[in-house]
């Protein structure tokens, strides 16, 4: 087992190990904040009453919104429900600090996730060709997720 050819130097693999720890600790903090903001009943979400107002305003402005409500693809909030809405997210992301926080969350998640995926695949791939292909795939996935995510975050609030 010790004779397996490694694609990377000891130094590079040690850096990957350390980086996985650093991004992991960062993600615990970013995800705690993300969870508080997007999943808990706080002012970052709309209450049922606020959502009713948002729905009627949107319906008055955009015929596609009316159709989506008629088709059941956009639904009223239940009593006591807090809803993620375009308005609330746009308001939050109008602040450059929040944009920065969300970009950091995205990049950390993509780095940690794709490095982890490569580590797992590396445990089961023996040929150096397969390991290189796995690394290339992880890098491509990282780039795709990061670029698409940054575009989404930066375009938030821009119609």
């Amino acid at each position, binding site marked *: *087992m010790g004779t397996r050819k490694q694609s990377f130097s000891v130094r590079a693999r040690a850096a990957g190990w350390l980086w996985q*720890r650093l991004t*992991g*600790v960062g*993600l*615990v903090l970013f*995800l705690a904040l993300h*969870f508080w903001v997007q*999943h*808990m*009943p706080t002012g970052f979400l709309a209450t049922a009453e606020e959502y009713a107002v948002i729905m009627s305003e*949107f319906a008055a402005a*955009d015929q*596609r*919104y009316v159709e*989506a409500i008629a088709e059941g*693809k*956009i*639904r009223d*909030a*239940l*009593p*006591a*429900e*807090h*809803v*993620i*809405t*375009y308005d609330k*997210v746009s308001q939050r992301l109008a602040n450059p600090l929040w944009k920065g926080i969300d970009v950091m969350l*995205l990049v950390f*998640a*993509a780095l940690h*996730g*794709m490095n*982890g*995926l490569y580590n*797992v695949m590396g*445990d*089961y791939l*023996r040929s150096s060709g397969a390991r290189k292909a796995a690394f290339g795939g992880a890098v491509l*996935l990282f780039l795709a*997720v990061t670029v*698409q*995510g940054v575009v*989404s*975050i930066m*375009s*938030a609030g*821009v*119609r």
Partner: protein
Amino acid sequence: MRLLTRNDIPSLKNFIATVVSMTPKPGMVAWLLHRLTGLFLVLYLVLHTLGLRSMGDPVAFEKYVTMYRQPLFKFAEFLLLGVVAYHAFNGIRIILQDMFFRSGTERPLFYLVLLLTVMITVVGGYHIIYPYFIAPLLLWWGL
């Protein structure tokens, strides 16, 4: 020390055979759950990023959010919190174990990880499922 044989070579087949043949022990269960939750979270990260392409269009975004507000998805959101909480607490355990506790302490630390995971999932998850599963029950009981 015994010599390594072909059966010791890491492969998916040997991995499954080993997992099935072993009596579950906390350290191994912790490792396996960390791996499975990690793989799931990578998949979820990709799906989440694809879904948020709708941020460019208000109507598409509200449709996307409404889809995730179905009762089944709310329950999945509850489970997602559990998956994230486990991966986070177990990750912290791995770091602490590397730095301070060394091996031999994984059993109590793993039980602590499970306890914290359940606590966070119940406390945070309560707010997620409340409007969908708990409020209707309270109403039904006439409270």
